[in-house]
């Protein structure tokens, strides 16, 4: 007897390859998806009886293809006007299907499918739902819930995305090396978007689901492109960030800053896998943004306590990131590391030129206030914190800053002690998701 849960997992695992191959045959996302759907239904009937086939993916492709061909033929008969072009096309694709499905073909099929979902014509708000629907097989309802929109609205969004993709004319011939690497970069970015959508989700279940799905897609991509250090870096980054999942929120669902997290709740298995991938990536000596961000996340993961964090090394890594992917947010993050390694004055000087560009950014004023507070400039710190509160994205962010303000005011009242408390600590944990 074949376990239904096993079949379920087998269908999920086979899905990207099967739909990717069906898309190559039919060159139509809807037809490919329906064909796969039909094959899955038949699998659910046949596999428990006969046991799973030796190669479930090949089985699904073959059955799905035949089902879709039947559909086309039936339609042709009903209309009594056989579409010559369509039929001859289909004869063509039948021939090579003595499926000795070779690995490289699979690889391009899956990459094409993923690439279609993150086509440059699609805004991110459509890319993620399309990928979750087509590649991951999440239901429209699940996706709608993740995005906090109605099912009908999400259905419409996905339909619109499919229509755009159909018009976009994605090349179906085997991509050349340059095209392949461009697709790979776009797909990696899309997978990280899915991850971040989960990482920043406010609701626990969605969070876990999307992050885990992104990690699954990341592993799939890495299995196909086993020697790409940036894909190793992407996987490592997601694994290490996700390792903190159980520690990032309190019982009421409020965010907990990294310094305050219970590190005993960090998932060591995910960290181990992430560290293994970073080790491998470093050997290639081809650094990239995912690898550097992963290395930063890994330094936090390796540190038994906030106080033991290797801020000097983190500062150097952010400096590297500034070079390969310059952004004011990266510089701000470096400044936080600088404040820990060299003190708040140096950090304050580093962020001074950023104020204009980050004038609407909560974390900028949170960090600035913390640096000023460290230097004993309470009045200016309070001003920065006031601005931060006005820009806070969540109640937890505002509450965190407010508690620091309260401390300043309490200190000011009794004026007995030098201001101590927390040293400059912008929430690196939250910010990391913003860097892309």
């Amino acid at each position: 007897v074949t376990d239904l849960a096993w079949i379920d997992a087998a269908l999920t695992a086979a899905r990207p390859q099967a739909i990717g191959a069906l898309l190559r045959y039919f060159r139509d996302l809807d037809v490919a998806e329906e064909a796969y759907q039909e094959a899955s239904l038949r699998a659910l009937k046949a596999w428990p009886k006969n046991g799973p086939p030796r190669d479930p993916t090949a089985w699904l492709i073959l059955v799905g293809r035949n089902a879709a061909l039947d559909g086309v033929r039936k339609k042709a008969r009903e209309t009594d006007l056989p579409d010559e072009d369509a039929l001859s096309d289909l004869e063509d694709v039948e021939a090579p299907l003595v499926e000795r499905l070779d690995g490289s073909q699979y690889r391009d099929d899956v990459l094409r499918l993923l690439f279609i979902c993150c086509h440059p014509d699609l805004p991110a708000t459509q890319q993620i739902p399309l990928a979750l629907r087509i590649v991951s097989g999440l239901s429209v309802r699940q996706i709608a819930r993740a995005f906090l929109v109605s099912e009908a609205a999400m259905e419409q969004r996905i339909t619109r995305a499919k229509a755009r993709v159909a018009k976009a004319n994605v090349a179906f011939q085997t991509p050349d090396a340059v095209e392949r690497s461009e697709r790979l970069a776009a797909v990696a970015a899309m997978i990280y978007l899915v991850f971040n959508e989960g990482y920043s989700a406010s609701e626990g279940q969605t969070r876990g689901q999307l992050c885990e799905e992104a990690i699954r897609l990341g592993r799939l991509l890495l299995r196909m492109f086993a020697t790409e250090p940036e894909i190793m870096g992407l996987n490592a980054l997601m694994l290490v960030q996700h390792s903190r999942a159980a520690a990032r929120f309190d019982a009421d669902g409020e965010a907990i800053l990294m310094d305050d997290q219970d590190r005993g709740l960090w998932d060591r298995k995910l960290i181990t896998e992430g560290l293994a991938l970073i080790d491998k990536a470093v050997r290639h000596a081809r650094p990239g943004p995912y690898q550097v961000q992963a290395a930063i996340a890994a330094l936090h993961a390796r540190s038994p306590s906030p106080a033991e964090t290797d801020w000097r090394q983190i500062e150097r890594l952010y400096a590297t990131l500034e070079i390969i992917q310059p952004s004011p947010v990266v510089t701000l993050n470096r400044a936080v590391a600088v404040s820990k390694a060299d003190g708040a004055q140096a950090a304050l000087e580093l962020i001074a030129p950023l104020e204009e560009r980050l004038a609407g950014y909560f974390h900028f004023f949170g960090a600035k206030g913390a640096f000023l507070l460290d230097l004993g400039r309470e009045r200016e710190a309070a001003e920065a914190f006031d601005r931060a509160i006005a820009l806070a994205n969540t109640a937890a962010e505002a509450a965190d800053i407010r508690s620091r303000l309260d401390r300043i005011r309490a200190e000011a009242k009794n004026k007995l002690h030098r201001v101590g408390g927390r040293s400059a600590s912008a929430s690196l944990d939250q910010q990391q998701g913003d860097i892309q």
Partner: protein
Amino acid sequence: MLYAMLCYNEEDVVWSWTKEQDDAVMGRLNVIYERLAAQGKLGPALRLLPTTAAATLRKSDGIVLDGPYAETKEQLLGFYVVDCADLEEALGIARELTVANPGGAYEIRPIHLYLPGAPISETPQAVGAA
């Protein structure tokens, strides 16, 4: 006789399990482990991370390759060391494990040399003790 029970399965499928599915499989396997351990039949057992985390040193030329040594449809995902009277008994255990964790295959291979080594921590230092 000591046997290594090598667990082969489709990595894509196993790593597509949801956490609930994974927990359910591990829970069912645990019942068997505990009984075997209590009977003194179970030695070290381990589950490997995905092959994407693997690196392979080719001895002929010293080149380090990314990924597992063997590119197979089903991958080596872990193994147990069991102490059984004979192949039949080992097969019996393998069948029991199959019910708990379907899919793939168990290769049962007698052990030529068994070195238990020193006890090592489950939380390696490099990962940071929490």
